[in-house]
């Protein structure tokens, strides 16, 4: 099974770490580079400062856990989405902007590839894990939500990332597509289905 993580920022990087024991090959896509502020709420370590995020996370997985992952340090765009997602059995949307989510969603639907989205509210009050058939992206002003900029919401971001990792794990084991809504009070299952159902 090949799982492709699209965006390895706050949610994506933490989710990838939680997926490191999956019986799957992991591909990481992100054009961005690790900056000091990213250390506050993302899975990166000081030694990764300046590196491309996808490459830095792949390096950390290899160095700390002996897990191999493929890194693609490019921006996912209309002209390369097909190539970047080729061979994927599951796409994971951890982007921080509507345009990239919509592009990925359109490709997943056209190519028939399962896709799960994860998102957090800008004020860190709730998060969602939702499979593509039931996902409608919210409009937002700019890339990089405030929740990802500081370290204030790290526990909550970790909660959403862990819930997403569990949804990926369930899909890998049994093909079930579980949605969830996450708040600081609870992780609430909201729907489930099966691929193609």
């Amino acid at each position, binding site marked *: 099974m090949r799982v492709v993580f699209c965006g390895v920022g706050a949610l994506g990087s933490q989710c990838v770490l939680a997926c490191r024991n999956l019986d799957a090959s992991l591909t990481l896509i992100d*054009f*961005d*580079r690790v*900056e*000091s502020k990213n250390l506050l709420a993302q899975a990166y370590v000081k030694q990764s*400062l*300046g*590196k*491309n995020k996808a490459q830095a996370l792949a390096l950390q997985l290899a160095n700390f856990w002996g897990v191999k992952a493929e890194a693609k340090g490019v*921006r996912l765009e209309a002209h390369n989405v097909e190539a970047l997602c080729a061979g994927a059995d599951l796409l994971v949307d951890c982007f921080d902007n509507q345009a990239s989510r919509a592009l990925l969603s359109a490709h997943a639907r056209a190519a028939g590839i399962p896709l799960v989205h994860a998102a957090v509210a800008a004020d860190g009050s709730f998060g969602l894990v939702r499979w593509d058939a039931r996902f409608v992206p919210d409009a937002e002003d700019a890339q*990089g939500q405030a929740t990802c900029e500081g370290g204030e919401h790290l526990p909550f971001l970790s909660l959403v990332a862990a819930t997403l990792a569990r949804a990926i794990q369930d899909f890998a084991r049994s093909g079930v597509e579980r949605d969830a809504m996450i708040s600081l009070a609870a992780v609430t299952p909201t729907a489930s289905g099966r691929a193609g159902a």
Partner: protein
Amino acid sequence: MAILNITYNGLSCDVPAELHAETSDFDLKRIAVEIVRCGDLPGLHIANLADDAFEHYVVDRFDTPEGGQRLYLRPKVPFGGGARGA
């Protein structure tokens, strides 16, 4: 998208870089080290470039008419004796 100019080892090269406008000088220097290490700077590939290679460099930032940014990573050039007796 910004254009980052790096001057090092007698070469001055431009490289397109995905950088946020608010990227700090510290982070820009670390990014530049990685760019040089991985050979993304034409003609300048130093795989073992030291982490602090640009420690005494400064960043000049200019907005372009197209709405982008040009960033120049160059050596600092102040001199000075400091206060007498310092």
